[in-house]
């Protein structure tokens, strides 16, 4: 990670990611509406929502909640900047987990039973997806020989050819990370599904606006994780990556609309099962190809 790439990523990600993320959320809502044969909200609706929340009356349950949410946003941005600057992938994973945990703390700090229930579910979600994310970084190292994300640019072929099963595992846990049904246990974007409003129950006005923006940053970062599987040292990579991202995101929306929410125990069981199978088989095959 050179200084130049860090600075480009710092400004590029911080400014462009919320624009892209908000637009993505708008496209998401539009496509979802069409899948349900509705017209759906305007494309820029997520931006209207955040702008409205910014102008609501400023209430806060306590003095810490807003701070935790703000720090969660800051760490999500730092994680994204490091990732797109070509930095250490493992570091990105840990910083992003920190961001999520700060969000959980924000909910816990309110002592509201609904928010606490949401926070507990969020923790179960973290437990479900985190092993796969760690394994993804380890297998990334095995395939590329470095934790740095810019190392893929030196490869002769994209890492999906080394890690096909890890990619499938990532897709599975991405549904949790994108907060999509059937795994949107702690905070759903669909109307009126959980206990009041899950983890964000006690957040209102500007705090809630920050939560939304954090979510936009995170979504762009996750799409980066998907994209890195298709990048290698060739200009063709751009085309392949764009196609892959569109397909993956549409798949997520499709799953979101076609599956009912599952219980937390089912989520945990399935996520770990998929993780173990994908990880073991893929790691074994990597070692096999080294031997052969």
């Amino acid at each position, binding site marked *: 990670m050179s200084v130049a790439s860090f600075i480009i990523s710092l400004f590029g990600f911080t400014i462009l990611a919320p624009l892209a993320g908000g637009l993505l959320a708008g496209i998401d809502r539009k496509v979802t509406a069409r899948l349900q044969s509705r017209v759906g909200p305007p494309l820029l609706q997520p931006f*209207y929502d955040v702008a409205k929340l910014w102008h609501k*009356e400023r209430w806060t349950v306590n003095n810490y909640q807003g701070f935790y949410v703000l720090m969660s946003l800051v760490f999500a941005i730092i994680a994204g900047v490091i990732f797109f600057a070509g930095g250490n992938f493992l570091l990105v994973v840990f910083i992003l987990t920190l961001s999520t945990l700060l969000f959980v703390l924000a909910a816990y700090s309110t002592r509201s039973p609904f928010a606490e229930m949401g926070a507990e579910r969020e923790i179960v979600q973290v437990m479900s997806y985190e092993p796969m994310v760690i394994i993804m970084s380890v297998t990334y190292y095995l395939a590329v020989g470095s934790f740095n994300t810019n190392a893929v640019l030196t490869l002769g072929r994209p890492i999906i050819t080394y890690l096909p099963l890890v990619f499938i595992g990532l897709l599975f846990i991405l549904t949790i990370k994108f907060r999509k049904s059937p795994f949107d246990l702690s905070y759903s974007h669909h*109307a009126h599904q959980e206990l*009041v409003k899950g983890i964000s129950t006690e957040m209102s006005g500007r705090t809630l606006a920050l939560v939304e923006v954090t979510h936009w940053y995170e979504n762009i970062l996750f799409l980066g994780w998907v994209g890195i599987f298709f990048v290698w040292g060739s200009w063709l990579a751009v085309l392949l990556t764009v196609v892959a991202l569109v397909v993956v995101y549409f798949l997520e929306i499709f799953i979101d609309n076609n599956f009912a929410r599952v219980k937390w125990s089912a989520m945990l069981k399935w996520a770990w099962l998929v993780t173990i199978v994908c990880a073991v088989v893929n790691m074994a095959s990597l070692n096999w190809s080294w031997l052969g």
Partner: protein
Amino acid sequence: MTSTGKSPWLIHYDAASCNGCDIEVLACLTPMYDIERFGIINTGNPKHADLFLVTGSVNEQNINVVRQIYEQMPDPKVVIACGICACTGGVFRDCYNIYGGVDSAIPVDVYAPGCAIRPEAIIDAVVVGLGILEERRAALDAGAALDAGAALDPKEA
């Protein structure tokens, strides 16, 4: 129209309703009426809501619930009474435990009659409510510029 008018999130509370009006409120969310076209989301959370849709009349059991939900909503907010029961008490008006319409508990901004209220009438009432919401936001913004502390004090609302 500002972002407030483009993104009104609503909370629906069923006071002493016969459920006729509730079903019509939910019908607004279906593909047939699709109120998400206007950016409306049905949140179950007063702290996220801008519009308060109440169906049914107010009685001894629920008067405090109606007040609590209203108080938990941050400004700017608008209350819409959906159905004739919510407007005046309707057929339940003379029951021993009924106070009357929603205005016997909290200030109501838009009265939308009908038994049961039609989804079109709910959408019309929401559109009228949006105008009021815009005025309140303008007042709040102006007040916030003058004296941030006082205008943002929840107890002043």
